[in-house]
């Protein structure tokens, strides 16, 4: 996570993935587009970030240590951030059904194309704004 990202008035995106290279690639791509980026390598850290920083969009991997994607989404929906848009990202075959289960507005299957990811993040931001 980059603390300076928090102070600025730009949309904040939380990237949750336990694969560090994947996390890094998404972070660079989002920063390049002018987003503020927070990262988390496990479910607990993800929930903590959401509670503390209220990101505009959460990019959520499903297979995570400590709390998995389902538990993270349940915690967010029930207690902390009921309306935070979740973009599900998973390497699993049943990406669609998993995305439905975490209440995601959209999903991507790994490996994904960066333009698709950025477009999906923007859709999430619009959804929140409108």
């Amino acid at each position, binding site marked *: 996570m980059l603390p300076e990202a928090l102070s600025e008035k730009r949309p904040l995106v939380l990237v949750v993935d336990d*694969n560090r*290279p994947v996390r890094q690639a*998404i972070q660079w*791509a989002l920063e390049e587009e002018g987003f503020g980026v927070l990262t988390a390598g496990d479910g607990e850290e993800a929930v903590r970030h959401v509670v503390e920083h209220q990101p505009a969009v959460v990019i959520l991997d499903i297979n995570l*240590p400590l709390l998995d994607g389902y538990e993270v989404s349940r915690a967010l929906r029930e207690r902390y951030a009921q309306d935070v848009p979740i973009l599900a990202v998973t390497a*699993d075959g049943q990406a669609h059904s998993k995305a439905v289960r975490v209440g995601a507005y959209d999903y991507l299957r*790994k490996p*994904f*194309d*960066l333009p698709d990811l950025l477009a999906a993040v923007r859709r999430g931001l619009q959804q929140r704004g409108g």
Partner: protein
Amino acid sequence: MSLDLALQYLAWALYVAIFVLALARVLRTPTPAHWDIAAFFGTSAAVIVLSTVEGVLGGQAAAWLSDLTGALIMALPYLLLRLVATFTSVPRWLLPAAAAGLLLSTVALVLGPSDLPTPVVLLLVAYFVALTLFNTWAFAREAAHAAGVTQRRMQAVALGSGFLAGDILAAGLAAVFPASASAWLLLNGLCGLASGVAYYVGFTPPAWLRRSWQAPELHTFLARTARLPYLPDIRDVVAELKAHAAAAVGTPAAGLGLWLEDRGVLRFAPSTAEAHESLVRTLGSSPETKGVRFTMDVFDLEPGHMIAGRAFAEQRTLLSTDVFRDDPDYAAFYQALGVHAALATPITSGSRRLGVLVVYAPRAPLFAESDLQLVQVLADQAATVLESRRLLEEAAAAHARAETNRLKDEFLASISHDLRNPLAAVRGMAQVLQRHLERHGAVDAERLGTALVHIDSSTMQMMRLIDQLLDYARWQMDRPLELQPRAMDLVALTRRVVDAHAAASERHRVVLQTDEADVTGVWDEERIERVIQNLLRNALKYSPNGGDVLVRVGRKHDEGGDWAVLSVQDHGLGIPAADLPHVFERFHRAGNVAGRIAGTGIGLAAARQIVEQHGGTVAVESLEGNGSTFVVRLPLAPRQSPPSPDPGPGLVPGGEVRHAA
């Protein structure tokens, strides 16, 4: 007509009826017992006919007619004794003595005056009654040993014989005490009728009576065999079926041969080691034991040989009242078993031949047809038991197949997941750098360096997965790995793997502990690295809350030789006791992690395969909630492992090899 006369006529009618039925039976199946029964009732019928003629003629009847009737009556206990001798042992002297008694009685009746003196009458009656009572006792004793229908029939016959003795005793007393003759004659009539009824029930019971007698034994058998299909071992099922069949029929021994279609033999398992021993001794030395083969603790019989094999080949029930006569080639076998008669019936379910049930008896059964029916019913029930068991086994096998398929599907899904993650990293990095380059015309060196490190580690991860998949494919075809052993240092390798994992995980502390500067052996470095990788990755994955992971490397010496020992200890979730015996099985995943933590279920199985093919061992100690310790032992001197038939070239380098004891 007086009462005693009426009773007499009723008794006569019964005796004649039994004779007709017995005659029909002996013509159908002429066994010695059937002959003796027919002779006994034939004589009785002759007595009845002659007495009737005498009654019609009255005073005009010739004296010899009455003598002949008397002689025939005196023959009855002797004939009964002959019948007794067919199914049980009687004192050797008894038959000749009875014959002599019969001869003397006939002489006395023919030569004596028509009104015999009282002492002679008493002597004749005493001979008749004594011999008949002996027969009664013999039948009663046999009834006590028998079971089911046979027991009831024996009891009835014993009762009939007892009444016959009473009948003659009363007739004799009527002659000796004329004053009270009418009372004795009434008793005589009653006893005569009672013996007729008892004999009728015993020797020629109607079908409904036989069925109702059979019912309790069948119920017992059914109750005892109901749980048999669920016994884990088929040998126990067979042993129980045999014991219950023998008990139901009331014989000391029974055999059950299972049909092994692929071998074309009926397989018998003797009930006890002693029985088998004696069979092997007697048969092993006999050259005429055609069609019988011994293996460790069973003997195989070809269909068509022995009573049992013939019953199976012909698919019908066979009775041998004398196995030494019918099966002379196997006399030694029957001698060892101590049997004289055998009853064999095929166990068949629909058109599926399952085996043969054979019931042995020390002597020919008197009521073979009853036993025959019972044994057929028992064989049908045995067929039901064996069929149920087969269906249960098929269901279990189908379930296991379905489970394996499900696990394979999970494995494929999991491997796809594991490949897509590093692929996403490589693609993501490549696209990010590309965008950066397009927009800024250059990528700063630091970012480029980080990206290249990530790409490199991700491709390494994919390469390892592909190697594992290839090993897995060989394994699916039951082919051993082609190990590439060369001298390598386990300490250095372990340190490298530990350092890589220690750097990758922020929550865990991975520590290597060793007192050795190096532990060098001849192993396949790439595979051993995979073993350490798999164990370490599991240790990290299954301790999601972090904590220390302790890796130790050392040496150990025991009776098996010198070993390199590597252990990986974590403080994570641990493994439930129920899963502990299965953790090294392919696709098996413990109940506390399956579906919660992603995994393929082959990491440990692959580790075991690699270690065992090196001639080593892998073991686990774990307590659920308290972490696990995996211990790998690798032989310091190369050896070939027994489970892999072809360890592949290069496992044992030539020249410098010392084989461990």
